[in-house]
């Protein structure tokens, strides 16, 4: 078995670039969804908000400035091929160094505070990153950077439901989370739902669900139908763009599912604002 050497300097450089471009360039799928929502929205004030968001994305891409001043906690998913040998340092240090350089060089806001319950001192370089590493077949490293803003993250929920509550109870808990959040998470939102596993895994599933393209359909028809039902119910709430009233409360709902303990029915909702900033690169 041949092992491929990969210098962690390449990872640092890639993460630096991902942090900057993810924050300047709204992904095409999200942009197209906002344009489509402008045409479909019935509320005049809602339409005006959506038009501002499209114009804002245009300005950010053209002037190379952040889409939103909350340039987020840097969440990095590293899928490391098991035939890769990382040399020159540790993966975690390389990712943090990439975040440090990207947030510095890109004029991105540093939004990480240490000692959250007391001093809340800014770390001044947006580190540490949140790093999720998985081993995958092959000799490549795939890096995905998500800039996760605080306002929407704050509206997320973990729900340890009883199996007897079934899908009726679970779907209601998703809708309730979005309803309670109202205008706070900068709607139109994108909703990631994790189902099953343990408390750590279910929240990770909800976050991973947010990496899907807006408008994409889940490969499993049963899950796709659950997503469609939730999207329809959420958009019936009337919250609308920025919570000012309207039909476009969510652009999409994505579900990731895994088995649960026989005693448990965990469900997590990760709320994402319309500025759904993420980008992937393969090394």
């Amino acid at each position, binding site marked *: 078995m041949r092992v491929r050497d990969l210098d962690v300097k390449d990872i640092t450089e890639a993460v630096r670039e991902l942090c900057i471009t993810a924050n300047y360039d709204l992904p095409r799928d999200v942009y197209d969804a906002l344009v489509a929502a402008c045409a479909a929205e019935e509320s005049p*004030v809602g339409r005006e908000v959506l038009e*501002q968001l499209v114009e804002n994305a245009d300005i950010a891409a053209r002037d190379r400035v952040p889409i939103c001043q909350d340039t987020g906690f840097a969440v990095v998913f590293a899928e490391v091929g098991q035939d890769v040998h990382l040399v020159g340092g540790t993966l975690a240090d390389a990712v943090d160094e990439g975040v440090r350089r990207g947030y510095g060089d890109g004029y991105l806001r540093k939004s990480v505070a240490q000692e959250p319950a007391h001093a809340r001192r800014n770390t001044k370089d947006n580190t540490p990153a949140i790093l999720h590493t998985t081993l995958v077949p092959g000799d490549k490293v795939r890096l995905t950077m998500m800039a996760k803003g605080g306002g929407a993250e704050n509206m997320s929920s973990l729900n340890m439901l009883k199996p007897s509550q079934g899908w009726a109870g679970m779907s209601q808990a998703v809708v309730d989370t979005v309803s309670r959040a109202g*205008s706070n998470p900068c709607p139109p939102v994108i909703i990631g739902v994790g189902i099953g596993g343990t408390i750590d895994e279910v929240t990770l599933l909800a976050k991973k669900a947010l990496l899907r393209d807006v408008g994409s359909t889940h490969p499993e028809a049963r899950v796709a139908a659950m997503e469609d039902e939730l999207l329809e119910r959420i958009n019936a709430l009337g919250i609308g763009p920025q919570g000012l009233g309207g039909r476009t409360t969510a652009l999409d709902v994505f579900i990731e599912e895994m088995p649960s303990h026989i005693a448990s029915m965990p469900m997590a909702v990760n709320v994402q604002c319309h500025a759904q900033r993420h980008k992937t690169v393969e090394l």
Partner: protein
Amino acid sequence: MAAKKIRTPLTDDVVRGLRAGDAVEITGVVYQARDAAHKRLVALIDAGEDLPFELQGAVVYYMGPSPAKPGNVIGSAGPTTSGRMDAYAPLLMRRGLKGMIGKGLRTAEVKQAMQDETAVYFAATGGAGALLAQRIVGNEVIAYPELGAEAIARLEVKDFPAIVVNDCHGGDLYEEGRARYAKAE
């Protein structure tokens, strides 16, 4: 939607003339302040000390910008979630604060204080920081530079677009707008 043009500092007359749902364009000085700055402002009031800016008629903008690129007045500069400042807002209104710009829900206590003290809450579009920055023409940090993005800055805005969410008459666009478009399950 034709926007009402208003200037800061705000007078009670101007505030009384604003209704939930009105689009406005704000020109004049607004003060950038978010979580850490509010904590310090309230501590100063509690200690009986002077504040770094005149509260009477003032408008605060709940915002912490991204760093300005060379040659730019400010970085991206959209509103943050206002609810985190709810604990501090009623006291500031009692001391003369007339306007707040942010996004998201306020507590009943804050809304009541707006009626009692004749103050108004505007929403700017969250996540439109690149666009809103173009309406900010002056930017000077006046207190707590060590707080970085959480410092207090005196911002000069020109035709800054916002919508009245809570007026001083009890109007609430978040409630009214949502009720208008909600479908029964």
